């Protein structure tokens, strides 16, 4: 199979994933207790009649399958509906906020790769030395610290005490640093461990011995050959991390008062604002699927064995 036909099959699969996620979310929201109509108006002043009218207006009095079919027909026509809370059209709202979240996800990913790969490599090379122990500690911290906590710590240190960086907002690049660090640590923790483990495996392989025997410098052996081989499993982790980080923005955007899709969906879930939840899930699913696709395809680029096996 060529690269292109492989990509096409993957894209077809991806489409099914997106559809599946939409159906799943629709069912979950439908089954959740609580009444979106009651969260829209204050029931202490609304008459039962008003509540009924509103429910009819929104089509929420229809049976499950009718709501379901109507929703999907609309989406196929590119109509994501309006927010139940403030009647904002969903699509422009998401498009407006999505870029902020993507940028945060991207910078966090870069942070996690830089910190993760550097520490992972050093820790493998200086195995059982103090730098290795330190790197593993950092990795453990990254994995086990909840982001809201590390986020608050970063604010206390770099905003309140040192006054170097802003604590909140999404105005300029400076506001990106602390949230990206907080979010990036999580990914970095995983990458450190993954890179370290696979570096240690690769270093013991025979081709490394051959390379050394050929008289290549240690730096070339490590960077050009060992690292490249060790990165393959790390890429899988990085791909998965991007998804994790998008999910993590729900917390981080709230902690740092940033604009973005994470905060939109957190608010929407609280209010059971179905059209907004659906819209965000739809776009997140698409991004997730694209990233997975890229990760899959990148194996073929990095590892000739994968390319040849097809």
């Amino acid at each position, binding site marked *: 199979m060529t690269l292109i036909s492989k990509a096409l099959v993957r894209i077809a699969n991806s489409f099914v994933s997106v559809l599946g996620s939409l159906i799943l979310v629709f069912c979950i929201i439908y089954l959740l*207790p*609580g*009444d979106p109509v*009651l*969260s829209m*108006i*204050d*029931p*202490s*002043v*609304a008459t*039962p009649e*008003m*509540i009924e009218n*509103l429910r009819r207006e929104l089509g929420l009095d229809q049976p499950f399958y009718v709501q379901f079919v109507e929703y999907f027909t609309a989406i196929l026509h590119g109509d994501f509906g309006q927010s139940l*809370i*403030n*009647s904002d059209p969903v699509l422009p*709202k998401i498009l407006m*906020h999505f870029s902020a979240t993507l940028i945060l996800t991207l910078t966090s990913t870069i942070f996690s790769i830089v910190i993760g790969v*550097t*520490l992972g490599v*050093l820790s493998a*090379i200086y195995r059982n030395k103090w*730098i290795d122990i*330190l*790197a593993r*500690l*950092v990795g453990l*911290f990254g994995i086990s*610290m909840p982001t*809201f906590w*590390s986020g*608050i*710590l*970063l*604010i*206390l*240190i770099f*905003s*309140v*005490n040192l*006054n170097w960086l*802003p*604590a*909140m*907002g*999404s105005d300029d690049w400076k506001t990106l640093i602390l949230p990206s660090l907080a979010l990036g*640590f999580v990914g970095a923790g995983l990458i450190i461990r993954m890179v370290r483990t696979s570096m240690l495996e690769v270093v013991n392989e025979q081709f490394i011995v051959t390379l050394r025997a050929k008289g290549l410098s*240690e*730096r070339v052996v490590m960077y050009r050959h060992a690292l490249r081989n060790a990165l393959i499993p790390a890429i899988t982790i990085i791909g998965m991390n991007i998804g994790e980080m998008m999910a993590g923005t729900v917390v981080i955007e709230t*902690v*740092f*008062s940033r*604009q*973005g899709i994470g*905060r*939109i969906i957190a*608010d929407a879930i*609280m209010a059971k604002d179905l059209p907004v939840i659906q819209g965000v899930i739809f776009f997140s699913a698409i991004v997730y699927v694209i990233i997975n696709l890229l990760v899959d395809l990148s194996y073929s680029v990095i590892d000739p064995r994968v390319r040849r096996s097809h």
Partner: protein
Amino acid sequence: MKKWPNWTKTLTVATAFLLLLAGCSNGASTSNSEDTSGKESTGGELTYALATSPDTLDPHRSGLAVSVRAFRTIFDSLVVQTADNTIQPWLATEWTVSEDGKSYTFKLREDVTFHDGTPFNAEAVKYNYDRIIDPETKAANALALIRPYKSSEVIDEYTIKINLETPSAAFLSNLSQALLGIVSPTAAKKDGDQFGKHPVGTGPYKFVSWIENADIQVEKNNDYKWAPSIVENDGAPYLDKITFKIIPEEATRIGSVQSGQVLAAETVPPQNIVSLKDDPKTQLLQVNTLGLPYTLFFNQRNKPWNDVNVRKAVQLAIDVDAIVKTLYMGTYERAWSPLSPGMLGYDESLENSVKPDLDEANKRLDELGYKKGSDGIREKDGKKLTLNYVDGSPNREKRNDIAVIIQQQLKEIGIAVDINITKDTATVIYQNADYDLYGNSQVNSDPNSLLDIYHTSDPEKEAARRMLGGGSDPELDKLLEQGTIEHEPAKREEIYKKAQQIIIEKAVIIPIYVFPYTVAASKKVNGITFDSLGYPLFNDVRIGQ
């Protein structure tokens, strides 16, 4: 093995060290700063952090206190309530009440214009109040406040007569609330249900922009000269601009003030109140809100909580002082009554009237036939004495922790407490009434607000939304009905004092704390004041150099 370049190692170590630093510091130290109390000036921008985002900036459609904090800058009301609960002129200069108490005639100021140039007059007022009762508007809390409004008659350009269905002693006080603020008829007609996104009023500041989840900006209204008597500055505000930033995470909100990124932030958690008092750069403003304090309601629909003796036993076993002191470190005041101190008719005699007495509580339960089992929990007729304590999420003002302490305290007298934390109080409490004890608080201006909570509910209302408590007491009903129509303040006070005494005597509720509104502000900021309800006013604010 060949050496790695030195800089990689240094960089890595430095990064790792920073991470460790992040893990260890507690951020407690504060740097000393120069003395900032200096000359005052006009102009400048105030940044003010809000804890949550407003739902809308349309006062008639909003249901959130946080919205009021923003739109009090944009909208004025006909009258204003002062700290001693008297009603003073604002957009109305004078008024008369008819003999039967069912109609009010207001003379209006003639020099007022809306931000969009629309003249303020009797037609505008009529449009506003009619708009609130129009079902199309989908008014929420404003609708509850304006009741029993019936109609408005324009007498001449600056005179309006407002007719009520029934007399209401709370009407003027309710009119003073920002939720009944006056909006521009031109803008409201043009924008319909989108008016809340670009509001237009007559207030000291004009709306500029609202970026969702980021900020709301308002700018100085240069034509403003109709400020209420509760602020010093009669004219246009000193500030050029206010930016309300929306910062939900409390540590970030307070941290932003300490780092100077914003000048003021609302809703300071108790642990920060204590530490901010020693902060040389920051001042702490605190005001008790008016209305109903945070109060735990027994669900009297459920046995045995319909029995006054069982409720009394719980009242005697709960040590409210201990709860408030432990959780709020002396920053919150304990509540004693169903009303907050400062409300018209607040009964001071209730203070210190209830003291914890475990022996008495045990005695009462013994007498009722509740016997302690082997696990220390009482039971009667094979049923354990269990209390289903429902509380909301997130853990607002440590309310979940109150539940935990009460669980321990009630264990002492053999009552098992099941704590259920839920996000969905709309369903659990107001739809299914599935609880034995549940807490709530309310900001309000008139003791008539007791009527909606403590009066026996009528079946129609109950079908739409279950009332808190759900009890019925004919004597209390009668008092609350009298309070609604009695116009003589002294007599009203007497009526509400009796009502409060009955509520506490029959242990209908356990009042816990008076809800304070707190603001942490840079010492550069002067002149933030509060209205009688505890909402901030920005007419007098100046920013020092």
